[in-house]
Each structure stands twice: as structure tokens, then as C-alpha cells.
């Protein structure tokens, strides 16, 4: 198989979505990036690490989304001087991923200008690379002072800085925002993330592959189903395990329930951030009802650990279908009522409209993805573009908007809630009979697999490499990618020219993950 504009033989991986892999040379690495860019493709993820047992030298990996599907390119690097051609000229979204690669794997881009560490804040030595093979993890590092981070300074008459975080004034995750402002107007925002980095990718390699779905489900707690599914898809694809149909439908049911739970929470919080407390009270009530039924029917309010390698742990009995369907109808009615109130509320719309705008052109240039991307006319939804079972039978209607402001992101959420409610009813009506789980046998040979799932925030991607049966650590490398990587830098653009008090509203309208990004 070859794709247009890129003359390299690709190997198709066994996965429910179209995914190809190739080991490439330096020239092909560049050609691949150029072909993806010219063909209207996107950079999905970029990561590095040590190679497999049969090829121990370090590698750089990139995943592109092209028309035909997903392209995983792997570039073996020189042991002594592990450098690779910079992807920044092709995809601006590569910037932070490349800095993270340098921190975690010690591989560098050729001629990279921004050498500031991204995830390493000085708490562990700069010459310790947790994802490089052969580097044993030391027992403990001495407490180290955090390194002063050189933020980009904005100069000019009356410009001053506002520093926020890492501990924020609410019940949210930690991160640092540095605003350069004149009066109330924001000239520039620079983020510093990485505070919740807890070494997930290294931890992954220490776990039994069959149990590691627990850790994958805790990369970002609000997307636990999406992450667990993506990891399991990767493991199942590496192990050639056929998942029973009923299990796939159950996964889709839980994924849509997760999407609705998050959208309900966000819609309430967005009303609240525009001083409309009524919205928060109503939507948080709906969310609580929703979570309680999840606990009753599926055993966990957030549905953690329900998706496992080979299938799912939870089943829906015949008697449960009725309450779940009825809840969908009730929530649909209430959401429609609240949608009308939001739409007609002049004060709310005044705060929402034209605030935090990302034009479709900017979104395309910077690679804005997922829900926020769809609100800026980036018509991308894995459930439609490369529908894997059971989505191939459900005909998902993608919600998009052109305005790219807070109002557009609110509108997309309303549309997606109603669409997911429709999907859940379809799933409940069409749930195939059969087993819930297929026993997964790990392959004897080294192998690789990929998971790619449309979570509520955007596409979750997992690239997994297993070593052969003789090695103690079966997971050689597991890269977990959150759509927040693409969207955080775009938030820096969305705030430009807005006033400081609108930042919480704009930030919430994206609702990006810190933990999923920091890993």
C-alpha cells in the first residue's frame, strides 16, 4: 500500500481503523511530513524512545492523519547523536511534542530553536531520560529547586504581566499561565504545563499488558472510557484479538455516556462562568442524575475499569434497557428547554458571542482538533471519518460550526449531547447478543498495535509496542496522546485581544486536559 505523494511501502496494522506503519530514512521522514501537509493531512502525535529488542537504537515516531487513514512513521536514530529533522516547518503543533521528546527520550530536532525543557521542571536531572532504554530509574532524586522558566517578554508602554498558577482559584488541575496585558486587554498568553507529569509512559512499561488498561483509564479521569478503549484497541490489534460484537457496542454505549456527562458538566460551568448560576444548578443536577444511573447500571459513576483487554466487564440486562432509554428521553427534553433559555438569554449570549474566537483558517493552520476544532469548521470526527464497529452502523451526524467563538463551542456541545442521546437509544435497541469478553493471548513475537478513539474532547491515540515473550517487561513502549496537545497552543491565540476576565470563560469553553497532556 502506498499513499499519494509519498513513495514508501507501508504495512497495514491489524486494527479496526485504517492504520499503516513504516520504518523510514531521514529523507523519507521529511517527505512524509511534506506529503501529509500538502495532502491536507494533520500531525496527530509525535513521540520517541528506545527501539524494540531487534532494533535497540533510539527512534523518533510521528503519526499523521491523511485521507486514507493513519500513518505511523518510525525513524531510527543514531545512538551517539540522536537527532531528527524538525517537523515544525510542516506542523506548528509539533513544537511542544518535540520538546517533550527531548525531555523524556533525549532525542533532539536538528536546528531546533526552542530548547527550553517542557515537562522537566528541574525536579529530576536534565541528563536523565526516563524513556531511554538501558537507563535504570534511580531510587530517588534529591529535592531540587525548580528552574526559572524564561517566558517570552512583551515590551512596551504600560505592558505588565499577570502570573497565574500552578494552583488555580478553583477546583481544577494545575498549570501556569503568564498573561502580558495592557489594562484589561490581553496581548499575549504563554502557558507553562507539565505540573501533573507523573511518569505514566515509563510506568506503563512496568505493568502487565493485561492490567495496564487501568493506568490508561487514569491518564485523564474525564476520558477514562476513551483512554481505556484506545489502549485496549492497541493491545487487541497487537495481539490479533477479535473483540465480541456485544463488547464493542457496550464500549460505544459507555463512550457516548461519557461524552454526555462531560458536555452536561461543561454547559453548566460555561453558564456559571458568564454569571448565570441557574445554568450550573440545572446542568449539574442533570449530570448527577446521569452519573448515578451509570453507577447503578454499570457499577461506577465515571465507568472506570469497565473497558478491559478483550472486551468489557459490565453488561446491560434486558430490564436495564428501559430505564436507560427513558433517561435519554428525559434528558433530551430538559436539554432542549435549557438550550432555548441559553439561546434567548441576551446577557449570556453577549458574553459568549465573538469571545475567544479561532477562525477556521487559524484552526486549520495550527491543527485545532476535536470538539474545539469542529466549532471552528474543522469537520473531523473519527466516528464519521473512519467509523469502526459499531459506529459504522450508527450513522453519526457530525456537529460543526463556523464561528469558532465560545458560543460556537457551546452550540457544538448542545448538538453533540442530543446526537449522543440518539446514539445511545440506537445502541440499546440494537445491542447484539453474545459474549462480553474474548480471552486475549499475548503474541510470542514482538508486535505493535494502535488505538484511535474519538473521546469527548477529541481523538485519543495510543501507540503500543510489545516485546517478545521471553522478556520480563512486555510493554516496550506505550505512547498515549491527548488532543489537548494540539489545542493548548491554540488557546494562546484564542485569548489575544480579549479581556482578562473572559479568560476563565474561554478556557472552560475549550476545557482541555492538564493530566492528559502532562502524562
Amino acid at each position: 500500500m502506498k499513499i499519494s505523494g509519498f513513495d514508501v511501502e507501508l504495512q497495514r496494522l491489524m486494527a479496526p481503523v485504517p492504520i499503516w506503519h513504516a520504518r523510514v530514512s531521514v529523507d523519507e521522514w521529511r517527505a512524509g511530513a511534506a506529503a501529509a501537509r500538502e495532502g491536507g493531512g494533520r500531525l496527530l502525535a509525535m513521540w520517541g524512545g528506545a527501539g524494540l529488542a531487534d532494533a535497540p537504537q533510539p527512534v523518533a515516531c510521528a503519526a499523521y492523519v491523511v485521507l486514507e487513514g493513519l500513518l505511523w512513521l518510525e525513524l531510527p536514530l543514531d545512538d551517539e547523536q540522536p537527532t531528527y529533522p524538525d517537523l515544525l516547518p510542516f506542523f506548528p503543533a509539533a513544537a511542544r511534542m518535540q520538546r517533550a521528546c527531548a525531555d523524556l527520550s533525549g532525542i533532539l530536532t536538528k536546528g531546533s530553536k526552542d530548547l527550553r525543557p517542557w515537562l522537566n521542571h528541574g525536579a529530576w536531572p536534565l541528563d536523565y531520560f526516563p524513556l531511554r532504554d538501558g537507563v535504570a530509574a534511580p531510587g530517588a532524586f534529591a529535592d531540587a529547586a525548580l528552574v526559572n522558566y524564561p517566558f517570552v517578554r512583551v515590551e512596551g508602554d504600560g505592558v505588565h504581566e499577570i502570573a497565574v498558577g500552578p494552583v488555580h482559584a478553583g477546583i481544577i488541575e494545575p498549570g501556569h499561565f503568564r498573561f502580558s496585558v495592557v489594562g484589561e486587554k490581553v496581548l499575549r498568553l504563554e502557558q507553562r504545563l507539565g505540573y501533573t507529569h507523573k511518569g505514566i509512559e515509563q510506568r506503563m512499561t512496568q505493568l502487565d499488558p493485561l492490567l495496564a488498561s487501568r493506568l490508561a483509564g487514569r491518564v485523564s479521569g474525564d476520558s477514562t472510557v476513551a483512554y481505556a478503549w484506545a489502549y485496549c484497541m492497541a493491545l487487541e490489534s497487537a495481539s490479533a484479538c477479535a473483540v465480541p460484537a456485544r463488547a464493542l457496542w457496550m464500549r460505544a454505549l459507555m463512550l457516548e455516556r461519557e461524552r454526555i456527562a462531560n458536555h452536561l458538566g461543561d454547559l453548566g460551568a460555561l453558564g456559571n462562568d458568564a454569571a448565570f448560576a441557574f445554568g450550573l444548578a440545572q446542568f449539574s443536577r442533570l449530570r448527577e442524575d446521569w452519573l448515578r444511573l451509570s453507577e447503578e447500571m454499570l457499577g461506577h459513576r465515571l465507568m472506570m475499569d469497565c473497558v478491559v483487554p478483550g472486551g468489557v466487564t459490565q453488561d446491560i440486562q434486558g430490564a436495564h434497557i428501559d430505564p436507560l432509554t427513558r433517561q435519554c428521553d428525559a434528558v433530551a427534553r430538559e436539554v432542549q428547554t435549557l438550550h432555548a433559555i441559553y439561546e434567548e438569554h441576551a446577557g449570556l449570549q453577549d458574553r459568549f458571542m465573538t469571545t475567544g474566537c479561532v477562525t477556521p483558517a487559524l484552526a486549520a493552520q495550527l491543527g485545532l482538533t476535536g470538539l474545539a476544532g469542529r466549532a471552528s469548521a474543522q469537520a473531523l470526527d473519527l466516528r464519521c471519518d473512519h467509523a469502526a464497529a459499531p459506529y459504522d452502523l450508527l450513522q453519526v451526524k457530525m456537529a460543526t460550526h463556523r464561528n469558532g467563538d465560545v458560543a460556537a463551542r457551546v452550540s457544538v456541545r448542545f448538538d453533540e449531547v442530543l446526537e449522543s442521546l440518539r446514539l445511545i437509544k440506537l445502541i440499546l435497541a440494537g445491542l447484539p447478543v453474545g459474549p462480553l469478553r474474548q480471552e486475549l493471548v499475548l503474541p510470542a513475537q514482538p508486535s505493535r498495535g494502535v488505538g484511535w478513539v474519538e473521546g469527548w474532547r477529541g481523538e485519543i491515540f495510543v501507540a503500543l509496542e510489545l516485546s517478545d515473550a521471553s522478556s520480563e517487561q512486555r510493554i516496550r513502549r506505550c505512547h498515549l496522546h491527548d488532543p489537548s496537545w494540539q489545542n493548548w497552543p491554540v488557546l494562546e491565540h484564542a485569548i489575544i485581544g480579549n479581556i482578562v476576565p473572559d479568560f476563565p470563560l474561554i478556557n472552560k469553553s475549550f476545557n482541555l486536559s492538564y493530566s492528559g497532556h502532562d502524562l
Partner: protein
Amino acid sequence: MIWKIAKQIAKNGIRTEPAPDIGEAVANEIGRLQAEVLAILGQSLAIRLVDAGSCNGCELEINALGNPYYNIEGLGIKFVASPRHADMLLVTGPVSRNMVTALKRTYEAIPEPKLVVAVGDCGCDGGIFGESYASCGRVSNVIPVDWVVPGCPPPPLEILRGILSAVRRRIV
């Protein structure tokens, strides 16, 4: 517009549920506790949350305490923006090394009696993340902890029970 809002409010009524039982407490335990909170801490209980590296699961459930069912503010418990206004520190997550300084500084900024409750399995024992080059594990490895609330994530009622238990243990 205002009629639509009023109608929606009236239709749904009051959903607040009674506060949870904390152990072998009798029916008036909560009332007594509230009186104690009031007598000892002043007006009410002010809490500052620090996410020291969690996956955000615990934050979702702590946020849920504000919904009409649990109505935590109705019990006289309020989440505040500054640690200097807080009686209690709620900490989630394994403490990432990148958050150690921020957590310690927040703890130092809290006035006495500096109550600390670690929420979630990660805060209790490091959880699935454990200790590594990037994670210090349990919260008590970094600051003193009065009470732990296990669970992954603990449901809102358990968190509320933990908050009330910590107050009773240290104050009463």
C-alpha cells in the same frame, strides 16, 4: 425569559439530600457537627483544593459536591480561592515532583489548625502511579495529613464524610 427560568426552577423543586451519616452518628450528628464547626472555626469551614497531580477524576467528584443534591455550601462548607482564607487543605493525586513546591507553599500559607485531607487512592498510597522519577506517591510523603479518603475516585458522599470526619477528629 424570566418566566421560562422560573418555570424550570419550580418544576424541578429542591433536590438537596440530607448530609451523610458519619459512622455511628445519630440523626442530629450533623447538626451538632455544624454547631461545632461554627463554634471552633468561626463562621463556617473554608477549604482550599490543591490538585497535586491527579488524573482529574477526584476533581470531578469534588466539583459534584457543589451540585443541588449535595449542596455543600448549605452545610456551611465553602471552597475558597486563597489558602490564606482556608481552614482545610484538600489534596488529590499522587504528588508529582513538579508540584511539590506549590503544594508545600500552599500548606505553609494556610493558617492553623492546618487541616489536611488526602482524597483518592493516589493521595492515600500513591495509587497506580506509585513512586517514580516524577511522582512522590502519597500526600503524607510531602505534607502532614489528618485524614484520608480512599476510592478511585471516591464518590462525593465519601469525600463529604471525610471532610466532616477530619474536622471532628482534630477539632472536637
